[in-house]
């Protein structure tokens, strides 16, 4: 029996008892019922955010290692630096070349520090664009894997034009003449995640979320109460199901089966199968038709 059923039963009982004594508690009971359902929504949304952030999640590096063959990593934006928060390179998916661009949070403490926890600098976005334009040149599909809290809000990124770098990616990816599939692995945080998310098809792992701003920031900026992060997560509708409904997300890749968690290997197998299917379907389309659809996808919002 699920906890909310029990509450429901308690409320019914309370209503019956009150009714037998000739007391009308219906407005109090419906207020309680609303409060309980709000609380459940908040807990669900927040537990999703926590799972999406958990350190044991499938990282981009693991997905790249297991879902693709012959992956070769490329480095640098050819302007200033190589940003470890974004990994990019070329590999084979089912024997066909693809370009993979991924935000990487880091697999251990040291790696996490060197990758800035997956928070990218302008160089990361510029590397991504360089590789995407190469993919266009060679007619390879682009696969992006997103897992970031957001772009790095630091002094260096500001001085080197983090806003401009993201803006360029939005403009160019929106008309890149090759299919693009995006998979959100964990966190899809704000404009920083958006800079890698413009695509033809967007898939989300079951325990991932995409959000205009972190629930913590929404709580303090809009709700004016930093402790209301759970409420913020629920209000912003960050869960994959809600994002499917809004037309942002095209499919959810399962992380569980009959209530049991799948292993990382099984999840990655699921990602690979989804990618094979999506890329095959997109590659059959005429590129101009694909671009019209991509345009329509974003102009519908």
């Amino acid at each position, binding site marked *: 029996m699920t906890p909310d059923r029990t509450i429901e039963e308690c409320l019914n009982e309370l209503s019956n008892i009150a009714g037998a004594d000739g007391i009308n508690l219906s407005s109090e009971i419906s207020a309680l019922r609303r409060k309980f359902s709000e609380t459940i929504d908040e807990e669900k949304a927040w537990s999703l955010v926590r799972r999406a952030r958990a350190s044991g999640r499938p990282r981009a590096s693991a997905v790249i290692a297991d879902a693709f063959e012959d992956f070769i990593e490329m480095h640098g934006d050819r302007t200033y630096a190589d940003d470890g928060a974004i990994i990019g390179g070329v590999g084979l998916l089912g024997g066909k070349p693809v370009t993979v661009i991924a935000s990487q949070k880091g697999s251990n403490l040291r790696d996490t520090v060197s990758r800035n926890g997956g928070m990218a600098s302008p160089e990361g976005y510029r590397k991504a664009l360089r590789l995407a*334009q190469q993919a*266009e040149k060679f007619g390879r599909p682009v696969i992006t894997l997103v897992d970031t809290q957001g*772009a*790095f*809000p*630091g*002094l260096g*990124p*500001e*001085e*080197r*034009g*983090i*806003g*401009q770098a*993201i*803006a*360029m990616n*939005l*403009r*160019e990816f*929106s*008309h890149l*003449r090759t299919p693009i599939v995006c998979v959100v692995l964990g966190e899809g945080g*704000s*404009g920083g995640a*958006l*800079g890698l998310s*413009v695509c033809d098809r967007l898939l989300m792992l079951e325990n991932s979320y*995409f*959000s*205009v*701003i972190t629930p913590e*920031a*929404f709580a303090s*900026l*809009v709700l004016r109460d930093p402790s209301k992060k759970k409420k913020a997560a629920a*209000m*912003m*509708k*960050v869960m994959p199901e*809600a*994002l499917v409904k*809004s037309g*942002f997300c095209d499919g959810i890749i399962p992380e569980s089966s009959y209530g049991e968690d799948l292993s990382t290997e099984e999840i990655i197998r699921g990602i690979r199968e989804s990618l094979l299917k999506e890329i095959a379907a997109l590659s059959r389309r005429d*590129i*101009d038709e694909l671009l019209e659809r991509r*345009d329509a996808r*974003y*102009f519908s*919002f």
Partner: protein
Amino acid sequence: MPDDTLYCATCKKERTRSELASTLLVCPDCGHHFRMEPYERIATVADPGSFVEFDHDAPLKDPIGMVGYRERLAEAVKSTGLPEAVITGSCAIEGNPAIVAAMSFSFIGGSMGSVAGQKITRAMLEGVERRVPVIAFAASGGVRMQEGIHSLMQMVKTSSAAWRLDREGIPLFIVLCDPSSGGVIASFAMLGDVIIAEPGAFVGFAGPRVIEKTINRGMPEGLQRAERQLDRGFVDIIAPRGEHRELLARLMRTHPVRSIRPTREKRRGEKR
């Protein structure tokens, strides 16, 4: 707009809005540019009587059913007298036809939600349709948080519209006003062929408070000011408000729009 008091932090003096009308809300002593509302802004550049507004009555939207958002919108409409955070339309500047968009920081921090994003996009596409330059005055804290994912999508939409201007050979002139930040600076506001900024305007992606929280120390003074962004190469020209009209007219004369789409195939691979 009521005749409210404006405080000049540099001169430590109080001014009234009406007192500063003749200087276009610029402090006559120190040159500080006070924030300006869209209709006043458009009047500083447009030929008198030439402005024709688009989408004034575009209905407000609450796409994700956010608790309290409709009330917040109603309050913003009431306090600013504006229909949304951006006003768009067509006008002439020294006789040159243009499309113009101007944002209001007073309207929920100038935030770009689905209606504002749609108005900006539509204005840009109108520029394509009429083959006239598009001028956008940015003044925004970023995207409208209350619309969730729908707001983020406006960044893609406006950037995608900027791509169309590129393809069609239509100039996009951006004027960064105080403040130009967040999702607006990470989309169309950084995609202008020419990027102008008002003196002293905040221009940056992350707000100083967010950065302070991340790096655990204060922001060096002036790091995200227009002047620094000029040094860093993200702004072409810093121009005081009083010069915008003449400057934009000069830009329009030097960027004549060709009557047909450019035939040269773009490197980004337009096939048609």
